[in-house]
Structure formats: C-alpha cells, structure tokens
C-alpha cells in the first residue's frame, strides 16, 4: 500500500470513527433528553414514576388557580375534560395563562401525587393550542354530566 493510500485510509478511518462517536453520543443525548407529552388521563391510567420529567398538557380548570399571599407559589389544576392533575409552580406564569386556557407544564410528579412544574408555557396566540393538547382532549372524550 502506498504511503498516500495509507494516509487516505487512516484519514477515512478517523473520520468514520469520529462521526460514529458523534452519532452515538447524539442518540444517547436524544434519548435522555427528550420529554414525552402526557395528558392527565394518561397520568392517572399509566402509573408514572415520580421523578421523571415530562410535559403535562391540558386546560387550566376553572376556579382552580390559587396564589400564595407572600411568594410566587401558585397552585392550579390541569384537566383534559376527563381527568385532572394538581399542579404546583413557584414562579411567574406566562402572560396568556388563564383559566380555560390550554397550557403545557414541564416538570415531574412528586411522591404525594401532585405535579411539580419547573416551567409553564402558553403560546402567544389565544387561538392556538399545542396539537398535542388538542389531541389529548379529543382522546379523553368528554363525560357529559347529565343533570
């Protein structure tokens, strides 16, 4: 094998190994860092472990928002029409946060059953609802309350 060929081969090999490593690291990072979207119904039906981060989406249930009087702590309920989840959040809510509004909260379930959010998102357009939330609402169906 000529020196040029050998050098070319080494070069190609180095490149393949380098890119291969990058790809493996990427897939790892992808799998560790992707956040699943889960609706309140799913939360109740699937027994989710506490401590795993995910995105919870649904509507803010009416009359459920309450703020602490001396800090930024706030509690509210997220519902998809069928089931609901209690959410606690310590921070500033987005401008469009309102009862009846579709939102996504990122965080994890705590051992005592409520969802501790580290981030709450609502898009800057009141007509919009994240497609995942819309999907979940539809899937949950609606239990009409006969009076």
């Amino acid at each position: 094998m000529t020196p040029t060929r050998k050098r070319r081969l080494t070069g190609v090999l180095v490149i393949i190994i380098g890119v291969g490593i990058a790809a493996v690291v990427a897939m790892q990072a992808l799998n560790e860092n992707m956040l699943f979207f889960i609706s309140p119904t799913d939360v109740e039906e699937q027994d989710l472990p506490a401590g795993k981060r995910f995105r919870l989406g649904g509507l803010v249930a009416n009359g459920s928002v309450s703020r602490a009087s001396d800090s930024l702590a706030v509690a509210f309920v997220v519902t998809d029409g069928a089931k609901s989840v209690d959410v606690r959040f310590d921070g500033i809510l987005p401008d469009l946060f309102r009862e009846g509004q579709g939102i996504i909260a990122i965080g994890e379930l705590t051992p005592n059953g409520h969802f501790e959010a580290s981030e709450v998102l609502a898009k800057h357009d009141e007509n919009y609802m994240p497609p995942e939330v819309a999907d979940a609402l539809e899937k949950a169906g609606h239990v009409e309350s006969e009076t």
Partner: protein
Amino acid sequence: MTVELGQISLLAALLTALVLGLVPMIGTYTGNRRFMAVSTTAALIQCLLVMISFGILTSAFVIQDFSVEYVARNSNSLLPMHYRFSAVWSAHEGSLLLWELILAVWIASVALFSKRLPEVFRARVLAVLGWISVGFLLFILLTSNPFGRLIPSAAEGLDLNPLLQDFGLIIHPPLLYMGYVGFSVAFAFAVAALLGGEVSRDWVRWSRPWTLVAWAFLTIGIALGSWWAYYELGWGGYWFWDPVENASFMPWLVGTALIHSQAVTEKRGAFGNWTLLLALSAFSLSLLGTFLVRSGVLTSVHAFASDPTRGIFILAYLAVVVGGSLTLYAIRAPKMIQGGGFAGTSRETFLLVNNLVFAVMAAMVLTGTLYPLLIDAMGAGKISVGPPYFGLLFTWLLVPLVLALPVGIYSRWQKDEGSRLAGMLRWPLVMSLVFGAGVWIMEPDIGFVSAAGVTGGAWVIFGSMFYVGHLLKRKNSFKIPASVLAMTLAHVGLGVFLIGLSLVSTLSTEKHLRMEAGDKYQMVDYTFQFLGTKVVQGPNYTADEGEFVIYKGEREVTRLYPQKREYAQRGNTMTEAAIDPGFTRDLYVSLGEPLDQNGRAWAVRVYHKPFIRWIWLGSIFMLCGGMLAAANKRYRRKLPVKKPVKTGSKEVTA
C-alpha cells in the same frame, strides 16, 4: 385602490420567470446567443414586476385599506406608520412576498454584476434562478395570495400582533431572508456547473462573493433574531433551539462550511465535491426550513399558522428542486477530486475538519429538530427535544473546531510540519491559557466547561491576531491585505462570541420575586429597588409601568421602566422588558403579573447578564468580515479567455 393590480403584476412576474427559466437554458444547448441574452432582460423585468406588487401591498397597508383581508388581519387604524410597513411581512402571505421580492432582487443583481462570466454558464445560472422563482410565484399565487378581498370590507383591522410591533420585526425578517434566499445563488452556480460538466474550478471563484454576502446577511439576521427575542420576550433568553430558530441555523452551519470549502477548491482544486454538495445543501436547508415552519409539521412557539395544504406544495417544490439537484450531483459530479493531494498536516486537512464539524453540527440539529416527528410518525408518542440535547452536542463539536482554527490559519497549503506550527503558535497558546485561567480565578463559579470556552475563544482571537502580526513581519510592511483582515475580523468575531456565550451561560443571575413598592433586592453587586407602578397610555395600548432604581453601592446607576401592556384591539397582554445594556453586563427587569387587587404587589423578574452583548458583537464582526471578503477586488478582475471544456453536452467557447 385596486390591489388586484398587485396580483396581476405577480402573474406577469410568473410569466417572465418562466421565460427566464426556459429561454436562456434552451439557448445554452442550441448555441443561440440571443436566447441566452434574454436572461438579463427577463431578470430585470421580473424584479420590477415583483417590486410593483410588493409596493402595492405596502401602500394598501400605509393607506389602511381594510377591504384587503390580509391588511385587515394584520393592521389597525391606530397602528403607527412605521409598523404599517413592517406589518406587510408579519404573517405568512406577506412574508412569502418578501421572500420573492428578495429573490427577484438577488436574481437581478446576478444579471447585472456577472457580465464577465462566460455566457453559457451565466445563462444557466440565471435560468436555474428563474425556475426557483417560478416555484415561489406559483406557491404565492395558488395558495398564499395576499391580495384577497374581504367582502364586505372591514371597518377596522384586527391589529398587528403586539409581539411584532417592534423594531425587531422591521429589520429581522428582511436581513434573514437576504441570507436564506441568497444561498440560492450559490445553488444556481453549483447546478450550472454540474450541467456544464465544469471540471475547472473557475465557477467556484465566481460564486464566492455571492455566497459570502448571503452568509454575512444570514449571520446578522440570526443574531438580530436572537437579540430581538432577548428583549422582546421578557425572559432574558436569547436562543431556544426552537424549530424555527433551527431552521435558520442549519443553512448557516452549512453556509459557513461552504465559504471555507470554496476557498480550498478555488485555490487548490481540492474538495470539489464537498463544495458542490455544500452549495446544494445550503439552499436546500433554507427551503426545508421554510417548509418546516409553514406546514404545521412541527410545533413551535413561533411557527406561522399551520396549513397542511401549503405544506404539500412546499414539499413538492422541495422534492423537485432538491431531489433534482441531488440527482444531477449523483450523475454528474466529478469522479475524482481535482487538484493535488495533501499531507496529513496541511491547511487542507484543517479545513476538512472544519467542513466535517459544521456538516455534523447541521446533521445533529436536523436530527434533533425532526426526531419528534419521527417518533410521532412511528406512533411512539409525542415528544419534544430540547436545549439539553442541542447544547450538549454543540459544545462537544465546538472542541475540534476551536482547536483547529488557529492552526489552520497558520498552516501552509499541501504540506506543513507540526513542529513548525507548534513553534509559531506558542505565544497565542500561552496567552490564551493565561487568560482563561485568569478569568477562572476571578470568577470561580463558572466551572470548567465555561472556563474552557473562554480559553477557546481567547485561543481563536490570539491565534488570529498573532497571524496578522506574523504576516506583517514577514512582508515587512504595515499594510494588511484586505482578505486577511476580513478573515481575521470574522474569526475574532467567533472568539468574542464564544467568550460571551461561555460567560453568560454560567454567570448570569436570574430571580423571580414578589415585590411591593419600596422593596429592595440585592443581586451580585447591584441593588434593585421597586418604586411601584403607574398607568401610561400608548398609541394603541394601555400599560402598567413599573419604576425601578438600581444602585451599585450608594450610587444610582440607572432607572428602568418595564411595562405590562394591554393592546385594546386584540386584547393581548404583552411584557415590555426594561434593559440597561452594557459592554460587560446587562441589567434586565420585567414585570410578571400583579399579585394583589390594587396592584401594589407584583411578580417581577430581575436579571444580571454579564457579557451577553458579546454574543451579538461577535456576530457583527463576522458580518463585517464576510462583507469585506466579498468586496475583494480579485473577484472583479477581468477574467482570462477560457479554453472550451469538454463535456457530455455541446459547449460554447466562452
């Protein structure tokens, strides 16, 4: 006023674009010089027609013609004049017309400033650009017409989205599109080269200034978007790895690789296939980005209103343009790398590292952006991929790039010695290590990664500047060649960017608080005092305006007035942050929400952001470097007469 004229003008532009796409191209295969010459006229007429159309839409906004649905949806009688102009491109239809306008301007520029190119090649470049324009014009006319009427006419408009009533909207999209769309020129040059079977590398030299200008615009366009998000959104963030942001970042990554690859191919003939492929990919990614943000395929906080039918059109267009060009590449790209080989230690090698790193970065961003779609398509759930993934990959990939940069600058072409390079880089290395260590000692909180980032940035800066010194000493003069100055500026910009990024990532402080009038909060060495809010009236909004006094020790540094605005027409609420900008730090305050009935207590966000301006300052340096490089007189030198190049098709001697 008849806005329908705008539509007619676009239709005429479409016909002209068809002529531009067909006639000159036919001319290149039949040797008909008159046909080939049609390209200039067609390009100029098309530009004029699109300008007329755009002008008509703009005037509809300026005079507030609410009988036009697009105007009614995005404007309002209270909207200040300067926003009426920018409202034109604030939503899907208008922004597409802006795209087309910018494309038409680029095409006309190529027609006007490339008279020295061989006429066959030039005709083909313009024809390819004509086809691209045909696609966009069809898209606008068939699916996204901004000239539709609202009957009965609206008495009042719905107002421009308050988030967009801002200086940022006035400049960000046009500059960004200048970049995005500008890569179509490099694309057209590459396709023309493939069609002609160009084995010589002259076509690369011709395409360089066009590519550099597009790249420079894209750089500043992205930087502006980041700066705008920073002050407009009120959360102190400047980059979110949002699909829309990624859609603009991918062409930039490939574009950066392209401008470097072009240099190698022009000078040494190597990387011929890389350059071709990168040129095709840059514009392809621009188109892909357009598709992703307008089709509803990806969820994003700033995607346009999604419409799958539009998505189908763009996807078909994408398939034709990109698929066609990649097929051409597969068939026609030269089988061997032209030009000489190169040793393991050579400039070519370091630039190859550059090409690879940027290509892999682009691939990683693409994967992360599309991964949720893939998982959804497989029915495996709905996920999102966030900053942790992108941030991690990006950081790791920067390592080889930063290490290679100064070494590559000093390297000789074709063959060099590692020991020689090590000798010359000794001082930059020592200085950057000292700098990095010094920063780390002063601010131990930044941690290893950030300190490494600072050291890397310093390494890039010192390496680049020392090279200039070395060059001047060798030439025994004080005159820096423009091309070297341009390169140095751009690389220093990268270094400044890296230092700013590393420092602000770990040193920035953020606090969300509940504050009542009179409350104080201490952050780093500043004290923020909240003095309460009062109501103020804007042209089309009412706001609660807070007053904050900021002290450093006993001295008052500044007063900030963040607002919480209520826009009457749409009922939107908007946060207007207040920033005290500085070379070494930004102080940033924004109002959250009132926490009690009488508005005396508010949720407040307070930030201290050291060196954040360095991120955009670095981008400005890169812009200047790119523009300076494009202005190089070398590109405007008269070209020697060329010998005919043999190919599979009939070729006309240039």
